[in-house]
């Protein structure tokens, strides 16, 4: 089943365009339109169902909220978006798009799109911050890899790991406050052997968004007026608009939960998704899973649900514990165990090294695509207004 989804999507788009060109009468096109809308629903359901099942079936697949999984999620978003545009815009008279209730629903969607753009930017900056944490982890790896394991190396690793863990804490707590140019730099001079020294500040000003901007608030705003279309509207254009809005909210929520970005305090764990609609089931399951994790971590003040970050935190803490109690030459069994963890850490760092930049590029692609879609819709709405206005 998974393999056919992609093929379906390609031929689906092809079929729509051919059909639109063939059908002349309004009546005939209505049935075909219904079919298109239903197919869109089905495809959305299929896509997210696959994303859900991939996390439970094969452990060698990308785990939920890993970099790889997020990239697939973004891919699905782009596919949904493309299909959405085809269903709503292709071959359609602009006036159809401008009449009620679309004249209210479309601007609402476009408003969500704009908020999504800001979230994309916040997450892109957040990835830079994550990369910074990755570097600290790499220092720890570089320190602990060479043999023999000595006090010096362990101290070196401990310093890096402490910075790492502290930075993770700061990420969440300080995400919202935009620091001014005055910054308290905690470079203890001599005598503070255990305090984190050097390394600059935890959160660079360049990773912050606008003052008072909050991802949590934005997502809340995006989801607050989500309402499933009822009655006759459910079979018309309001339906794909609702579906697209839901998908957008879901993806943005996921990104904000996964990656440290400005102000996630108060990120709601409940999204108003329609429990009764079949296409939404996989999304709801995924969201509930993630919300569970979020609630657990929120209490501890964790850095974000990104799977790799969680692993780093876990392994990092283990290594810190080891470092605290280490004394040269150390027990060989313990050392072997630790080497295993160091390998693990190195592995995660490698994954991040390979995956973070492509992830950023993808988010950027989503950004540009959303900008373009917004422009296209605004243009169509504009045309509709012009056509309906009396000529001067």
């Amino acid at each position: 089943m998974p393999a056919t989804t992609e093929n379906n999507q390609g031929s689906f788009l092809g079929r729509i365009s051919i059909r639109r060109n063939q059908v002349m009468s309004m009546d005939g096109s209505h049935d075909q339109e219904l079919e298109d809308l239903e197919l869109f629903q089905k495809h959305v359901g299929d896509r997210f169902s696959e994303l859900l099942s991939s996390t439970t079936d094969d452990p060698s697949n990308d785990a939920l909220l890993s970099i790889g999984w997020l990239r697939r999620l973004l891919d699905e978003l782009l596919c949904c978006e493309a299909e959405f545009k085809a269903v709503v815009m292709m071959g359609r008279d602009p006036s159809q798009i401008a009449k009620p209730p679309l004249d209210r629903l479309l601007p609402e969607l476009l408003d969500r799109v704009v908020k999504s753009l800001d979230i994309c930017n916040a997450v892109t900056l957040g990835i830079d911050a994550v990369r910074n944490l990755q570097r600290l982890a790499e220092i720890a790896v570089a320190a602990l890899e060479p043999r023999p394991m000595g006090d010096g190396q362990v101290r070196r690793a401990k310093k890096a790991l402490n910075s790492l863990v502290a930075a993770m804490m700061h990420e969440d707590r300080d995400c919202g406050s935009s620091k001014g140019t005055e910054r308290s730099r905690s470079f203890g001079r001599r005598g503070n052997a255990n305090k984190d020294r050097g390394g600059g500040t935890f959160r660079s000003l360049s990773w912050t968004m606008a003052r008072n901007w909050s991802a949590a608030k934005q997502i809340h705003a995006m989801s607050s007026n989500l309402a499933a279309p009822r009655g006759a509207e459910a079979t018309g254009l309001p339906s794909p608009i609702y579906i697209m809005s839901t998908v957008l909210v879901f993806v943005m929520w996921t990104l904000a939960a996964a990656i440290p970005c400005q102000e996630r305090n108060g990120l709601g764990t409940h999204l108003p998704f329609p429990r009764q609609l079949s296409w939404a089931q996989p999304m709801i399951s995924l969201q509930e899973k993630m919300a569970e994790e979020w609630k657990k971590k929120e209490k501890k003040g964790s850095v974000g649900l990104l799977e790799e970050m969680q692993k780093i935190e876990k392994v990092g803490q283990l290594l810190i514990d080891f470092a605290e109690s280490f004394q040269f030459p150390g027990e060989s069994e313990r050392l072997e165990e630790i080497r295993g963890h160091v390998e693990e850490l190195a592995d995660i760092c490698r994954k991040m090294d390979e995956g973070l930049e492509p992830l950023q590029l993808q988010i950027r692609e989503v950004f540009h695509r959303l900008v373009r879609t917004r422009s296209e819709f605004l243009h169509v709405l504009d045309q509709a207004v012009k056509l309906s206005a009396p000529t001067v």
Partner: protein
Amino acid sequence: MEEDQHMVSAAQHILKALASSKTVSHEMRKTLLDLEIQLSTINERKGSGIKQLERKLKCLEDKVMSLEKNDSVISSEYLKLVGEIQTLQQKFDSLNENWKQKELVQKSNEILQVVMLRLEEELVQILVNHKQYFEVDYMSFNSNRVDLVYDESFGSVEDERINKVSRSIDDSLSEASNIDLVNPSVVEDLKSIAKAMFGSNYQHEFCHVFISSRRDALDEYFVILEIERLSIENMLKMEWQSLNRMIKKWIRAMKFIVQAYLVGEKRLCKQILGDFGSVYQYCFSEISRSSVLHLLNFGEAIAMGTHTPEKLFCLLDMYEALEHVAVDKDFLFIEEIDSFVTREFHNLQRFIVETIKSTFLSFRNAIATNPSKKCFPCGGVHPLTKYVMNYINALVEYGDSLNLLVDETLTDQSDSNDENNYENSTVSCSPLACNLRLITTTLESNLCNKSKLYNDVALQHIFMMNNIHYMVQKVKSSNLCNFFGDLWLRRHVGMFQHYARSYEKVSWSSVLSFLRDESLSTCVTERKIKKKCKDFSAAFGEVYKTQTGWSVPDKELREDLQISVSQKVIPAYRSYTGRHSSKIDEKWIKYTVDDLQCYILDLFQGSSKSLHHSHHRK
């Protein structure tokens, strides 16, 4: 042999004890320790390898400990030690791997870690304390450009000084292109620290600290340049004035950051880390990345906004700013390492180009659809005309850029036919020229519609005459003449003259008809003459009352028109009254020829007057 060794060891102990005494001065301590090292080298020549190495190591450890106690030690002291530790470590590596060797290696790493930590701190301090700041004030720009926002209540947009964002910023930038972001005197120290840390496999720490510190320094400049971080959502809601100010700041920042600051930053990275391969490029990339993205995101947000005509100039300024920094940007950001940034620059440029094109188009549409609801009082020059002509006059300042951006696809067929008639001047055949002509054609169409609002056909002609004349004057007196060409000018001069003639015909033929005899017979009844005179006076009075209220703002045009009218009316009047002078009663003639001449000069002054019956005739 052994006795010697014992003696040397004893001496070393004494020296050490002395050195660790608190009352010993720093220099004294140094001397004592150096002496101790010398003693151990004496022994070294004679003794067994490993013991000597061990002693040396201990020595180094003591040195480090004593340096630690002293706050004022600078990095050069530690740097020396690094060399010694590294030499020792090499020797350790060549020993057999046994428990002792491992111990020594471990110890040396421990000492190394302490030294590296010290160097890292030193690095931070140097970078923070020796940053150099540059005045960006002299890089202020001065834009006299008036915001051309269309407003029906436009009084006079005449002769506004339209200047582009002045060139001064570019000149001052070339002076600043070699700024030293860090005091050059400490660069050598930084290089030494880099060498020491890289050589000891502590390059990660060095890079991490270096990147963080330099990134913070760059952030500070964003504050200095007053670049605020705003969400796209808020920017889309912002009102034009604030947005305009921010765009100007953005342009200044883009030029300064890319051409001056980042060039300096890359140079600094290369100076300090150039010996270590491509590391310096990677560091530079990390330092600059987020900040550059912020700048680019701002540009995206601007381009996303509504395409109102007044934005076009800002967009053109932004486009030109991006073009301006293109060369430096290509030098700074290498495709392989900075593909993200290079791609985003490219995206932004493309987006701005698209936005410029569609804004240009929407400008033309705005002219075409400008509503004509009530007629413009007095038939003068419509604000729309002034706005459009001033607008395109300002546009040609960006002629070079616009020619690349507005291609022929924006024009329709009709103009391209005309092109064959145009002289072979490249400027007037350029894409921009074609588009400008299309704009004025659109304007003329709209004006035509507006003229139809007047009930009086004569006023319609006056209105068109005034406006076409204004357009011609504007073109003649500015750079627009290069774009419009002689043919256009001639045509349009002919046009407003044609309107003038049409006006005359419509207005005056009926009036003048009273001054003609139906038949050439000399016996025209007095009654007829009387009627004719009275009719003429009445008609003239009507025309006077109405047309004094009309406006021909341009002095020369007004005078020409008045002269032309006089030349029709006066001779006719004179000849009629002359011909029938014998029969004409004074009472029937209200005005003398001179009176008429005066009254004609009152026409088109824009304030309605009426003629009272003045009998101040001799």
